[in-house]
């Protein structure tokens, strides 16, 4: 548990059929560059991308715009991009609060996290 504090808040797990990006804790500007490169890497693989926001406590503007841009990219190139269930309620309302209505509306989970 103690180690968790030092854990990288964004990780990428790749498997045969998909790329899974896990976000954890406060995802903010300090890990924006990391998140960007993971998103690019995941999209480049051509496999469907899934993002887990389950244990996110805070998603700042940088992270939001990165996820938004990644999803737009996935749509245009025909790669699947899904945000996994469950998404913490505080996160959804924080996004709505900040005016990211369109984005929050798409937080409809495609599949249950395994």
């Amino acid at each position, binding site marked *: 548990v103690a180690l968790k504090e030092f854990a990288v808040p964004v990780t990428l797990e790749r498997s045969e059929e998909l790329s899974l990006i896990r976000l954890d804790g406060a995802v*903010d500007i*300090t890990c*924006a*560059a990391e998140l960007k490169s993971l998103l*690019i890497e995941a999209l480049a693989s051509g496999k469907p991308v899934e993002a887990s926001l389950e244990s996110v406590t805070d998603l700042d503007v940088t992270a*939001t715009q*990165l996820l938004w841009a990644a999803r737009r990219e996935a749509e245009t190139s025909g790669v699947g991009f899904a945000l996994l269930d469950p998404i913490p309620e505080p996160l959804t309302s924080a996004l709505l609060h*900040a005016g990211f209505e369109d984005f929050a509306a798409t937080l409809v989970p495609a599949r249950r996290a395994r």
Partner: protein
Amino acid sequence: VPTVSNADQFKQSFREEAREILVDLESALLELNENRADQELIGRIFRGLHTIKGSGAMFGFDDLAAFTHNLETAFDEVRNGRLQVTPELIDLTLSALDQIRAMVEEGAGGPSADAASCTQILAKVRQIAGVSPGQPAKNTATAQPPVAAGGGQVRDWHIRFAPGPDMLRDGTNPLLLLDELRQLGGLSVRASMAAVPPLGELDPERCYVAWDMVLTTAADADAIRDVFIFVEDGCELTIEPTPLCEAEVTARALDEQRAQPGGRRSYDKPDNVSSLRVPAAKLDQFVDLVGELVTVQARLSEIAARRDDPEFAEVSEEIERLTSALRENSMNIRMLPIRATFEKFRRLVHDLARDLGKDVELTMEGADTELDKTVIDQLGDPLMHLIRNSMDHGISSPEVRAAHGKRSTATIHLSARHSGASVLIGVSDDGNGIDSEAVRSRAIEKGLVAADAQLTEAETFALIFQPGFSTAKQVTDVSGRGVGMDVVRQRVDSLRGTIDIVSKPGLGTSVTLRLPLTLAIIDGLLVSVGDACFVLPLANTLECIELTREDTQRANGKHVANVRDELIPYIRLREHFNIRTEPPAIEQIMVVETEEGRFGFVVDQVLGNCQTVIKNLGRFYRHVQVVSGATILGNGTVALILDPQRLAQDALRAAVQGARERPASAHKVLRPGVP
């Protein structure tokens, strides 16, 4: 990974900004004291407090934010015409600013804020502003009764806000701004992602999101704009009322016109000033490096001159040109207007005048004059002592002034202007002037001058700078001046400056400090005596004449040269510095202008011009006053930079002493100091 140093950096930049705002607030408050109905000043103060509160909270200075919030509330009341500006409010706010300053510096090595006085100040502020402690005060603008001046009607505003590219990097969270807007009234928000570029081109730390908002509030455009005050630079912000019907528009326009006859700008920051905040240490490092470069370049030029290689010479010349431009540029970067230093003294004058029961007005001239940051930093103390002295001793109470037929309000005038490579800083008052008789008798009493000494006015005034001159006895009651003046002298000396006093009994005193524009580099003349090289500052050097053995013999051993029928005393640097080599047949006298008149310094050879980077000799040699520093020459050797002023004074003192005791010896001349 979040780092501590990042947070520290943000805190540091907040501190820097807060310091500046506090200085501005202080002078705005003191100006407000003179002109209590000035809406623009009130707005400036409100916005200053608001910025400190907002950014303080952003960077974790929660106590500071909470404390400032109450002051802000009070000034919001003032702004809305519900509260009168009184001297009490101004004094209270001034002491609150002191506490805020302490809170800002807390953790940065400053003294911590005094909790008891904070509570006391808060209680008084609340009492004045009519706010109860629990009440969240301002923020609920909708709950306030509508007022006529500057809005007050609840209406819809359309706000579009696109943060500047660096806003997130600067540690500002735009979402907090939205929360702040919500405190003004109902807010609907929509984030626009239109500007978000493709993932590959996206700068992950930049904000591409823009917000379109509709705010329903009674607050006016200024109040809304105030929310963004800290981030306004570089961002795109439009605040527009949603259209009203025509009658309303006319009514509002009329109201606004009535309320603000001059019309006022919506915020105080100068438009589109693009500037960069850089830590002074980095700048010092930069100037140091340029200094090293100048030294190396001198060496390169020397080598180039020795070699017969046109290509090499060309490169060397090019580098010389660039270095010289770089040097001038780097010096320029360090130049700051003296305004901030001057403004600081408004408070001192205000407080002292109150404490001493005097009526004093501070006027300024040339506050935009620029000088080296190091000089500015060192100038605060001497100016403070000079102003204190004027206030304390030079200026009388309003009654006494009136009895002498003077205006009851006294004036202290601060001035700054350039004069060649120097800057002149003046502190003058219209007080009583220096009583030179009293100074004289006190000096005789202390044994500083002989009882029968004939002193010029300048010599008499110079006495007040003697260490301890006025501290022993209450001479200040009679003579007027003294306390802290030796500090002034020391500081000005260390800046290689001079002090000039003009005083007219009953009319006032004017002290002028002449300071070099910069401390880091001087233009000098390189001279040699035996194997040693010295640098004389070019600024004071007048001419160079030959001195032959015959001339010396003709003068009968007296160190005086006849230059176009003017007798000029000279000092042989060879004797002065005990250099045991034979002088050449023809020596050179460098004629230098000093405060003691023209003086000659005899050297073997004049080697030429040099741009000299001054290196401090360090604390160990601090007592050697005839040398103002050292420099490294092109060939790697060290040359001492001479202070002609001190050399001349030393020689004169030794001559006077020698005449009194026995003939002056070279050894005597060498000893600096003790009168």
